[in-house]
């Protein structure tokens, strides 16, 4: 099966700062992908490149088999794109904006749109600029759904939305996706929403390091182990003055270390035993490792770091 999106040796920079040097991934059809990463790693840049709004320095991206910078109108009709901030033409009303988009999309179903916006209980002549962030997001989502695209690209769908609207957004998305043959590629900061929604996660790190894994696998395999800091009175633990780099070099399976006053949290895909073994070889008390329960958000922060 042909990938819906295929990124091949993508390289892009702003000035001398490289966003990605050699990015590669492919998205299979029919799945929901969440692109996770800290602010500024290049999530929106990637969406822009995929939609042809930005031309990369080198590399190739295709969407439905077509080069991103030369997407034909026929392919664009199959893509629903949510711009960051739920950008919409705010001078239009609920009715007018539907009338604007409808003629462009052959599969347009206005009932889907009105099913979404009727929930707002606003008049059809209500202007979008008079709406709150959440209300606007509903209109935009309604427009996207009515288009019935095969690929939904949602750039930071959660921005400006409170918990209620975010939940509504995801519920509608789920219903929509149940109709089959739809692929979603979304970015978000709100990690916990992804938990029951996303099939695969793509972690994007600064410099373009990428990890693709199923959410299930990530949750199951990524773990946190806590090791106390020795207080200097002979209690076992991490010696005072120990450097982060020393532990990282001793334990190459560590993804990240978070240093607190009394303890260090060590994040890894490896098992507790493997980690303990590595610590023991450096005369560190690996047997004192305590597993820590992680929510998806904790795991994400643990993987990518706090800052």
């Amino acid at each position, binding site marked *: 099966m042909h990938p819906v999106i295929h990124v091949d040796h993508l390289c892009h920079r702003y000035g001398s700062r490289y966003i990605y040097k050699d990015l590669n991934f492919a998205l299979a059809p029919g799945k929901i992908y969440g692109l996770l990463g800290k602010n500024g790693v290049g999530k929106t840049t990637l969406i822009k490149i995929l939609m042809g709004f*930005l031309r990369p320095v080198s590399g190739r991206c295709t969407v439905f088999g077509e080069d991103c910078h030369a997407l034909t109108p026929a392919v664009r009709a199959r893509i629903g*794109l949510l711009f960051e901030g739920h950008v919409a033409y705010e001078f*239009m009303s609920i009715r007018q904006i539907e009338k*604007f988009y409808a003629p462009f999309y052959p599969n347009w179903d206005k009932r889907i749109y009105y099913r979404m916006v009727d929930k707002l209980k606003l008049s059809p002549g209500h202007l979008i600029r008079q709406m709150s962030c959440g209300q606007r997001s509903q209109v935009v989502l309604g427009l996207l759904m009515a288009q019935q695209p095969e690929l939904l690209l949602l750039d930071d769908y959660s921005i400006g939305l409170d918990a209620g609207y975010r939940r509504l957004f995801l519920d509608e998305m789920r219903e929509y996706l149940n109709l089959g043959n739809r692929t979603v590629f979304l970015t978000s900061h709100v990690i916990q929403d992804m938990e029951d929604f996303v099939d695969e996660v793509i972690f994007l790190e600064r410099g373009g390091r990428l990890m693709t894994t199923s959410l299930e696998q990530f949750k199951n395999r990524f773990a946190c182990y806590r090791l106390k800091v020795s207080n200097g009175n002979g209690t076992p633990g991490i010696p005072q003055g120990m450097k982060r780099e020393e532990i990282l070099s001793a334990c190459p399976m560590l993804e990240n270390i978070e240093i607190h006053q009394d303890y260090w949290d060590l994040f890894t895909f490896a098992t507790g035993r493997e980690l303990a073994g590595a610590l023991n070889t450096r005369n560190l008390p690996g047997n004192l490792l305590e597993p820590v329960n992680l929510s998806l958000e904790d795991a994400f922060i643990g993987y990518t770091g706090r800052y």
Partner: protein
Amino acid sequence: MIQAIFRKEFFKIRLLTLFTLAAHIAVLLFIYVSTRRLFILDHPEVVWYRVLHLGRIHYGLLKYIPLISGILIACFQFLPEMLGERFRLSLHLPVSPAFVALSHLVVGITVYCIMALVDLCGLGLITGLFFPWQGIEISLLTALPWTMAGAGAYLGMALALLEPDFRLKAVNLIIGAGVTGLYLQNVDPGAYGPSLVLLIVPLLLMMPAILLPVLRFRYRRVG
């Protein structure tokens, strides 16, 4: 599809356009009042001599009005599109960027032409109330380059607003100002007569030239 874009654009600029049109009508009314006053203060043959023979026109106020209108219409149309780069919404539509750009332009030019027509008809009517048709003819020939200047101003402003790179924005502003300036020389009334047809060429060139900033806006790093 083009109707959808037309509807969107007309709706976007309708109120501000109406205000601008009202301003045009106000200016025309002022010209009517001041022309009428000329004939109160002096005998008609003397006013005819001054206006028709000496070239001291009674509608000089109209010279820069089309220019201002052209700039305003472009701002009404494209500033909202540049806010948050909303123009991407139209550019992502499943039609070519050229289609999007030119259909937007058609709306702007149509609205501008309506205003220009109001100006020219108003001027013709006012002049016709007080002067023979030769006076109407020369006043329209004099005002026509000013309306062309307004079209140049609209297109130049659109060129500048749609360009994402600020340096090229400045270049486009200069191009717009340069083209507009071609039609605003201080010459005798009706002096532009024989050149008017040829002077349409720069305006015709500016319309497809708009594609370049739109493509740059759309694709960033065109080439």
